[in-house]
């Protein structure tokens, strides 16, 4: 939609319809903004505090990184559920390396990247070159990672390495943003270094998906892998790199998680893979492939976490309310996407309904 500079009128050119990716992403962004605005008006308090908004990032930077890797895999039509397991394994291995083997900060970061790459490579080879179902391969990857944690160390460990702690306590102050404390002093808002990493990754992957050949190939493969093959795209290699990148990002996510909590524990990042999938779905990435965007994933993750904050703010503190509302929210988004895509595909909502639900004037084709 190009605007005419003078009149502000749209040009007379026939408008190109908005793509599924952008439509679903717009819905997610609008939902999040609306939800947060309502929360600010109704509950005020914490929601007006910029630090609470930034804490959404501080607490979930690792989840955002996993979800970004997953977005690429899901666009190519696959699935990767090993993210949480790899994250937890990296935290444990890095802590043990720092504590027991006199490791350095740079060394531990290299280890986290190495673990992520190793998992990604194995997943990629098995899935794209040996044609094994991605769900099973990454499920085995998750089991393997979770099992390896207890082999490395059964008891939870805490990092006490000096250099690492300095890095952990590092905070980035955002200029001009902050809130007034109880005594009236201005406290600037802070984010953790992990958040910067996560944001850089989001931007990088958005750019990769938008402007590189690899990114466009991913969409082509997810849309229809057979046509992609006939167009001369190397389907296997593209899929392989998607899984490698997802593994690498899971490794980085582990290091970010460690920077946030400073402890290695077998219970770290439980259910992170399912939350990452949920963030992607809310963000408009379809599991069938070919549709999706990391910006949508970012807002999907924010929506998922904001709804939890809203539930707590509204006084429903029992733990089961949170997961039931998460389920309801997922249900809402899934149904919404299904209806929107069906309408766009068939041009009418009626055609989506089964035969026995169609009533009214036209009534569908009557069987003779």
């Amino acid at each position, binding site marked *: 939609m190009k605007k005419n500079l003078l009149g502000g009128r749209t040009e007379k050119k026939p408008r190109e319809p908005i793509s599924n990716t952008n439509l679903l992403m717009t819905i997610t962004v609008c939902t999040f903004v609306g939800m947060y605005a309502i929360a600010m008006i109704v509950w005020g308090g914490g929601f007006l505090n910029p630090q609470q908004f930034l804490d959404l990032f501080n607490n979930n930077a690792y989840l955002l990184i996993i979800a970004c890797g997953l977005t690429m895999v899901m666009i190519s039509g696959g*699935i990767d559920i090993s993210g949480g397991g790899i994250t937890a394994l990296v935290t444990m291995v890095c802590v043990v390396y720092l504590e027991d083997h006199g490791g350095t900060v740079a060394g531990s970061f290299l280890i986290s990247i190495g673990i992520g790459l190793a998992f990604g490579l194995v997943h990629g080879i*098995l899935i794209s*070159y*040996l*044609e*094994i*179902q991605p*769900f*099973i*391969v990454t*499920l*085995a*990857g*998750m*089991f*393997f990672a*979770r*099992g*390896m944690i*207890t*082999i490395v160390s*059964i008891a939870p460990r805490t990092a006490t390495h000096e250099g690492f702690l300095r890095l952990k306590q590092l905070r980035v102050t955002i200029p001009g943003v902050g809130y007034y404390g109880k005594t009236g002093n201005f406290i600037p808002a802070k984010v953790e270094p992990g958040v910067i990493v996560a944001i850089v990754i989001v931007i990088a992957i958005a750019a990769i998906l938008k402007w590189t050949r690899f990114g466009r190939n991913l969409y082509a493969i997810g849309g229809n892998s057979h046509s992609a093959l006939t167009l001369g795209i190397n389907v296997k290699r593209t899929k392989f790199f998607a899984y490698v990148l997802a593994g690498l990002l899971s490794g980085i996510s582990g290091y970010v998680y460690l920077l946030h909590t400073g402890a290695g524990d*077998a219970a770290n990042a439980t259910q992170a893979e*399912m939350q990452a*999938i*949920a963030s992607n*779905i809310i963000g408009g990435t*379809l*599991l*069938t492939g070919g549709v999706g965007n990391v910006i949508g994933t970012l807002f999907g993750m924010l929506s998922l976490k904001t709804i939890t904050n809203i539930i707590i703010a509204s006084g429903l503190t*029992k*733990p*089961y*309310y*949170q*997961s*039931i509302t*998460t*389920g*309801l929210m*997922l*249900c809402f988004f*899934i*149904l919404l996407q*299904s*209806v929107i895509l*069906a309408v766009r595909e068939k041009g009418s909502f009626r055609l*989506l*309904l*089964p035969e026995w639900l169609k009533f009214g004037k036209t009534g569908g084709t009557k069987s003779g």
Partner: protein
Amino acid sequence: MGNGFKKLMRTQLVIPLFSLFLIIVFNLIRDVGFFSISIVTNNQGNPVLSGNLISILNGASAVAIMSIGMTFITSSCKGQDISVAAVAAIAGSVFVSVLRSYEITVPVIIYAFLLSCLISVVFSMFNGILVAVFKIQPMIATLILFSAGRSIAYWINGGATPTVSSPLLSAIGGFIPGIPVPTPIIIMIIFLVLISLVLRFTTLGLYTQVVGINEGTAHLNGINPVWVKLLAFVISGVCVATAGCITVCRIGLINHETLLLDAEMDVILAVAIGGTALSGGKFNLYGSVIGAYIIQALTVTLFAMKVPSAAVKAYKAAVIIIIVIFSSPVVKEFVVNLYKKMFKSRVKTPVKAS
């Protein structure tokens, strides 16, 4: 001969049977007495069978029953239901809450079981409607109940982990006095026989596979894919409720957090190892059941090798990867070609006829 081998490689049962065989051989080499079965007297004074083989068959029965339902869903909907364990927790909670409000007798148990079946079928139908009518990917659709299911069970239980105890329940979860075989194994066999009869005498199996292979063709041939998919979810609902009730009877309490924890992953693995493609289409029910026993046999073997329970997952994953590598189409093709090359001189290639 080359053709026969090729045919054998193509059948879906070859991988599960081969892996089960490997695990058995491995155990026999490691410890000859691994599969010995003895008759001991349990604490109720009844003679019962005991041994690793029995504990494999007994322990896998819940997963095996659920894998029957999962096979139908996988075949017809081209996807998996990841909410089975959560729905089993809901069914178990309903079962326990009914039992606790009455005196436990046989009719009450049957009533409680039927009610939990009904609730479980309702929840399964919720998944089924999302999948069949709204055409949502099964894994995404069932993610809703996966995240909310255990919380619903928590709400039914009122936040506690209520216990039930009665000799009748321990007969269902353990042994019926006078019969030395654990009851879950008997229930599993009854279930399998029933489903086999249904498959043998109705067109259910054919319809399910047709819908899974090509939905459009099924529709043109007068099969309504929506009903077939919903039926798969109803079957799964009954299977899940049965598995949940058996597990509750076995441990005598309902813990919504830990009841059949991670069982959905085991069930999907059982289906995959059993030779049913996770992308739908042709299914093999017996393969799935054998798959469930393979997973349990693996776990029992690892426990017997004194592997700590938390680390079992890592070894399990390694073995699973090996199994799926051998069942990969690329590797299968490679093996068949290798076989052909090796025996090319001896086997005359059959004349291309018909």
